[in-house]
């Protein structure tokens, strides 16, 4: 009898717990009690006030954004610090730290210092999302800055959007991100893969002097929608007239020789590829080994001094379509970039597209924050960024204007070439 009563009690307990649980289903997560709830409450209330804020000129009571206090602005960054993109993450981290140091050494902005929490995500979206929750719920950040990779950013951005946290200056190319209707707080300085390919194609078809013979242009891309978009971009631009086919390689290809051989058979004169700098080095090396005499074009990612360290003379004549100027250019922005990177312990090899992009983002961010001043929240910074006109990065990039529909800051097609062992700007685009 007692045994049955105990069983009944247990069952009742279970049902009551379930009933309690189901009752919560319609609440939003952030309403539950926790010490961190204050910042998310501020976020939701600042969202509510945003519409009235945009209508009115100035509100007497200022709702600060999450991660913003009178003395501090907190930022987070989820980077691949380990795994096979570790180089990019490490380089970007230097640039982020350099920016923070510059701003804080200069006394901060509107009386606030910047703090940055960096977490490793191993280029794994699962970790990026876990990091995002860490930033939002535990650290309480104003924005997540400088993420690398499409998949990680696409995975985490819903969390950012829901918490009203900004997604700033990522290096990701997925087209779905460039949609401010869906992602109002997303800003980027790096165009989508498709756009970059079109930029290359137009430059090649309209401006580049490819000599007297008819060129044959082929893409060497990863077998994926990103790669295919890039290939399509080449076809859609002016170089489409010289299209010589597309070769794809699989994610787990060890070498590219078969693809390069096929290109050699097709008489390709110009190879356009979307890879990182190490794979670019490998492609250059294998082109030489296979006897494919062609020009090779890369994107942002290949503009590093590491490339030349890896393949030496073979790199000579390699080209890249980027949004940034060549490392050897004598522009004030780069001079400053070098100094500030050295000040945080970076070496020459850490000066790359990854760090330059992050650094340029830092310049824009600083300007935007200064323009906002005291009343800092996501909408204010958004407005400030959109209001920027031809913002100068000291020559690192073309002057920046943010497109209100996409959140993209530049469409540049600065062409760089390896000349005498260094990346040099050959066309401002």
């Amino acid at each position, binding site marked *: 009898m*007692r*045994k049955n009563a*105990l*069983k009944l009690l*247990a069952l009742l*307990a*279970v049902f009551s*717990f*379930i009933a*309690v*649980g189901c009752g*919560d*289903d*319609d*609440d*939003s*997560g*952030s309403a*539950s*009690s*926790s010490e*961190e709830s204050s910042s998310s409450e501020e976020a939701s209330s600042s969202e509510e006030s945003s519409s009235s804020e945009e209508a009115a000129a100035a509100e007497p009571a200022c709702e600060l954004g999450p991660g913003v206090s009178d003395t501090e602005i907190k930022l987070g960054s989820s980077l691949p*610090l*380990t795994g096979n993109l570790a180089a990019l993450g490490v380089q970007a981290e230097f640039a982020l730290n350099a920016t923070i140091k510059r701003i804080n050494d200069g006394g901060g902005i509107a009386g606030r210092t910047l703090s940055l929490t960096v*977490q*490793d995500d191993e280029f*794994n*979206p*699962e*970790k990026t*999302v*876990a990091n*995002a*929750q*860490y930033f939002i*719920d*535990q650290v309480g950040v104003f924005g997540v800055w400088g993420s690398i990779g*499409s*998949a990680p950013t*696409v*995975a985490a951005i*819903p*969390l950012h959007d*829901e918490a009203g946290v900004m997604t700033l200056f990522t290096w990701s190319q*997925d087209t*779905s991100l460039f949609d401010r209707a869906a992602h109002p707080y997303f800003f980027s300085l790096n165009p989508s893969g498709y756009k970059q390919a079109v930029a290359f194609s137009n430059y090649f078809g309209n401006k580049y002097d490819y000599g007297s013979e008819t060129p044959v242009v082929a893409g060497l891309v*990863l*077998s*994926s*929608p*990103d*790669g*295919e978009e890039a290939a399509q971009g080449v076809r859609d631009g002016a170089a489409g007239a010289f299209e010589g086919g597309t070769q794809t390689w*699989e*994610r787990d290809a060890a070498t590219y020789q078969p693809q390069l051989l096929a290109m050699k058979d097709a008489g390709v004169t110009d190879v356009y590829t979307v890879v990182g700098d190490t794979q670019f080095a490998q492609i250059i090396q294998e082109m030489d080994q296979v006897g494919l005499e062609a020009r090779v074009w890369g994107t942002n990612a290949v503009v590093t001094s590491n490339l030349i360290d890896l393949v030496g003379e073979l790199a000579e004549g390699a080209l890249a379509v980027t949004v940034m100027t060549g490392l050897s250019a004598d522009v004030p922005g780069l001079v400053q970039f070098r100094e500030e990177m050295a000040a945080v312990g970076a070496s020459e090899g850490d000066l790359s597209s990854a760090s330059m992009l992050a650094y340029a983002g830092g310049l824009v961010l600083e300007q935007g924050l200064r323009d906002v001043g005291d009343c800092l929240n996501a909408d204010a910074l958004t407005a400030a960024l959109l209001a920027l006109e031809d913002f100068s990065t000291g020559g690192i990039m073309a002057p920046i204007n943010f497109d209100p529909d996409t959140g993209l800051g530049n469409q540049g097609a600065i062409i760089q070439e390896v000349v005498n062992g260094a990346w040099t700007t050959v066309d401002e685009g």
Partner: protein
Amino acid sequence: MERAGIPVPGYIKRNHLLGVFFFALTFLLLPQFDQYTTAIGFILVFAAVGGSLVIAFGAAGQFTLGHSIFLGVGAFLSANIANDSYGWGRGLEVEIPIALAVCFILGLIVGLPSLRVNELYLALATFAIAYVGQQVLYEWKQFTAGGSGKSAGDLTLFGWEIGRGTPYIRLSLIILLVTFWICGNILDGKTGRSMNALRTSETAARSVGINVAWLKILAFGISGAITGLAGVLYIHNLRYAGPENFNVHLSILLILTLIIGGRHRLAGAVAGAVFVKFLPELIRDVQEYEGVIYGGALIFLTLFSPRGIIGLIEASLRIIGTRLAKTPIVKVIPSLIPSQIEPADRSASPLHSPPLSGVASSEKRGQLTVTDAKVIFGGVRAVDGVSFEVEAGKVTGVIGSNGAGKTTLFNAITGHANNAEGAFTLDGVELSNKPIFTRSLAGLGRTFQNLNLHGDIRVLDHALIGLDREMEYGRVSEAFRLPHVVRNERQAYERSAELLDHMQLLEFWNEKVDDLPYGLQKRVDVARGLATNPSVLLLDEPAAGLPTAEALEMMEHVIEYAAHIGCGVIVIEHNVELVADVCERVIVMDAGKILADGTAKSVMQNEDVIAAYLGT
């Protein structure tokens, strides 16, 4: 049963109560941890997969490196179903059943290699499957959007929107609880027992009538389905899925998680998931050394507790338990344990107990006809044209020198010999060329020279495994532990208890057979054979290694039981005294042929037999 303390099968076990307790605890405390909801969500996903692997791997022993494919398929099914724009715009009530169904079928297909290869080779085959599967996901752009992946659809259940964070985790908790309940029911029933049997000895499992091939595939099917469900939970937690993540590394991680936790227990699935998915959260401050800490912890744990975290906990509990048993507080706990089986009338023989009276039969069966049996391999004629007929219900002995072909003859009859020729019928039913388990189900029981016991399984389960063929419930009913399932289980337990009692094994019901002395192990082998309620029982050297007195006593009990149920016995033995004592008829084999056939006395006086085998 009470005097041995065998718990009665019921609806609720102690583990259920523990599970509900932890569930309730987590459920209530969740808001305190709402900054970890993403990590907890992943813990639940991995725990669900782990639970499914307790069935496929822990029970059925299929070491699979291919489970990431189910997670991926489940995730993308969810994305495509739940998304408003390009999908159907439906909620979890549609996503979950479809994921279960599709991944069940996928699992059956993925399980096919398990029919041809075992163990490590199976690991390799499933590895290849995961690899190919990922490529397929990449290429099937419509389903997965290739490298870009897909975002999760809205999270709704029957039209109710489920909030992200705590509400969703609570829902996942409930789903996990139900899933674990179902997994537990499967493990506790005939399916779980059969799977454990096939893991520990495929040969023996076949001989008690288990369709090993189908069961292996089924293990993959069930496990795949549950992992597909976990995939739905996965994508709603991450809100995104890309083919990149469903790679071989994930597959390895999935099974590794269970191994870390302890692969024979559902609790191990949870323990492993917590270790794998929560540890990174705790060491964020020293993140650059995460690999060293994580890898080091893994090595450390494996070195000190090969049975996983749960093994460690159980070992500690046992130590604490033996100390606590002396204190009065413990008395409260037994009352929560389900009641024990009512005592049978101790004075009477177990054979007359209600459970065993049911199988009594005065009708004799087991008329076995062997016609021209031959087993030839590599030029050796192990069995060379043997023919004989055994009457129903008789006890027959088979003797001969080593290499005479006795065991091989048995193997030919039961189907364990691959290249046997000849015709075999049992009670008029044709057995030739049928698979082992079919012959077993037709009434052919056997024991083994090498015992082939199920090492880490209890004695009681050996008897239950034999009885499983008579369970009158289907696997779906078993999953939900319906009343008739419990009834059948209860009956089986009672019958097993009485059978063990008859074979004088009752006090060892809870021991793992590996821990038993040899003599007892031999008895377990016999008990298992008897439990199948055979028409004829083939005993292969049951007395080997036993002192004659013990052997005689055991044989007496066997014969008594056999007479009780009306089945015949054929026994291979070297102990001629024993044979003479119990067998009415003796067949002597030599060099693959029958040398003599008659009463024990006449055979032993046969000159040829004396020359070839008995000696003077």
